[in-house]
């Protein structure tokens, strides 16, 4: 905590950072460093951790059982991100074109599920997807299928749950850039003879790119760790990195290995945020608050 210049510190208000510094160092920095240390220690025979340096935790990640889990997680996260972008982009974009009253109402409507307990929303999907549940009844009633689809505890159910849980992040990110968009640029392009599609592809997409990237980051990162969605809607059939870490900590009690997994996940996450910052030159993620 070196002090660069006393001049600016004439103000006494800067003392306000002290609690933040203390909390951050003790309860954020400390745990993360401990995780890094743990990941290089060995697991004790019976209980706890032995202070013996090893790289075996990292090597273990590349065993096919665990490595496949990582790859499966990545696939699901990418698929989730792609779908939320496809569904969320038009939503955020159209939302920004509404009247100011319409925007306010829409904003409220998007934020309520975002604030609502994710478990409750997942539970709603269970009722819908359950064998002989609402969806089955609807489809059978319409004569589209003649027997229950058994959607609950399947990959599509997990995917729907993930997209559903994370969609508000994408919408808010897209909306916040679209709202600031200078429409006159789009109009100018149209006046100069560009078709709607051309103007959209060359101007709008480019101008909303920071929002797209921010949304991608905000959706992709949590989707790697949301173990409870795979648990509840996948019925334990789907092992994601999140589930793996959870099991290693709570069931197997192999903390060093869980730490190594977390470190890898953390590196992946930081890399994504770093790339985001390099590309957009923005420090805070668009539409986060």
């Amino acid at each position, binding site marked *: 905590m070196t*002090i660069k210049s006393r001049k600016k510190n004439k103000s006494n208000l800067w003392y306000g950072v002290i609690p933040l510094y203390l*909390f951050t160092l003790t309860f954020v920095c400390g745990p993360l460093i401990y995780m890094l240390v743990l990941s290089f220690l060995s697991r004790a025979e019976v209980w706890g951790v032995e202070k013996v340096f090893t790289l075996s935790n990292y090597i273990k990640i590349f065993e096919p059982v665990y490595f496949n889990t990582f790859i499966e997680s990545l696939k699901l996260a990418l698929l989730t991100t792609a779908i939320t972008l496809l569904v969320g982009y038009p939503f955020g974009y159209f939302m920004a074109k509404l009247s100011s009253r319409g925007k306010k109402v829409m904003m409220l409507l998007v934020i309520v599920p975002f604030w*609502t307990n994710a478990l409750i*929303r997942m539970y709603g999907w269970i009722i819908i997807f359950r064998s002989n549940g609402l969806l089955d009844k609807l489809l059978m009633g319409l004569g589209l299928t003649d027997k229950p689809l058994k959607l609950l505890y399947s990959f599509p159910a997990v995917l729907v749950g993930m997209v559903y849980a994370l969609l508000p992040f994408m919408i808010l990110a897209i909306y916040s850039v679209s709202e600031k968009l200078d429409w006159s640029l789009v109009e100018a392009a149209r006046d100069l003879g560009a078709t709607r599609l051309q103007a959209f592809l060359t101007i709008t997409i480019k101008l909303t790119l920071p929002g797209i990237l921010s949304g991608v980051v905000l959706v992709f990162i949590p989707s790697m760790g949301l173990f409870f969605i795979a648990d509840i809607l996948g019925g334990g059939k789907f092992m994601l990195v*999140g589930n793996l870490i959870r099991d290693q900590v709570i069931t197997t009690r192999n903390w060093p290995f869980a730490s190594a997994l977390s470190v890898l996940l*953390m590196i992946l996450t930081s890399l994504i945020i770093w790339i985001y910052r390099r590309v957009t030159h923005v420090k805070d993620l668009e539409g986060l608050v």
Partner: protein
Amino acid sequence: MKNRTKLPNIYLAFLIILMYLPVAVVIAYSFNASRQSSVWGGFSFSWYKELFSDRSLIEALKNSLIIGVLSSGIAGVIGTLGAVGMAKAALKSKGIIEYISTLPIMIPEIILGMVFMAYFSLMKLPFGMVTLVIGHASFCIPYVFMMVKARLAGIDKSLVEAARDLGASETKVFLDITLPLISPAIISGMLLAFAMSLDDVVISIFITGPRTNTLPIKIYTQLKTGVTPKINALCTMMLLCTLVLVVLANFIGRKKPVKD
């Protein structure tokens, strides 16, 4: 031309309906007299009655509320002071600390839960309310911090300067001018933090004690082991709380700071 303007609205409406469908289903079934969720047995309040007579659920609700109030309160103080201080401080470590302090809402929750569990047992903290409040505060602080920081950036500097020129002390300026201007951001940040605390299951599962249950943990274990329709009623009650919070936050947050 008319069709073009209608299509976006249809899309928006369709997606909103889809977003609210699972929530609506939960609410509807909380009034279902039948025990099976696939059968509609008529309208009834019986699950609500059962809910309020379930001691362990009420206990979990109480815990969740205490944790929510404490952690968002801590976040309100640390986050606000931090944001105000950061704006004034000329510390080299500012950037890095700011980055680390917002990590809890950037990294996947599972990492945070896992490291907290290991770290708290290293520090020999008693698992339960204490660990839950600290853990929740860690992801509540960034919400308040970021909101206050954004609001501070939008404040008209000349107001502060004018007051200083007229001889007000720095503390007085802060209390009389800056604080009232940033208070909507503080309150809506704290409300968001409170909602996130009430919502959290991933981190809580790792850092809770053997005898401490929060509402989301309770819902999660029930969803995994077998659901009684009581859970519908419980979820509906929680939804109601959330709705009140959102409306409140929206109402308070709408008051924009005077700029011109």
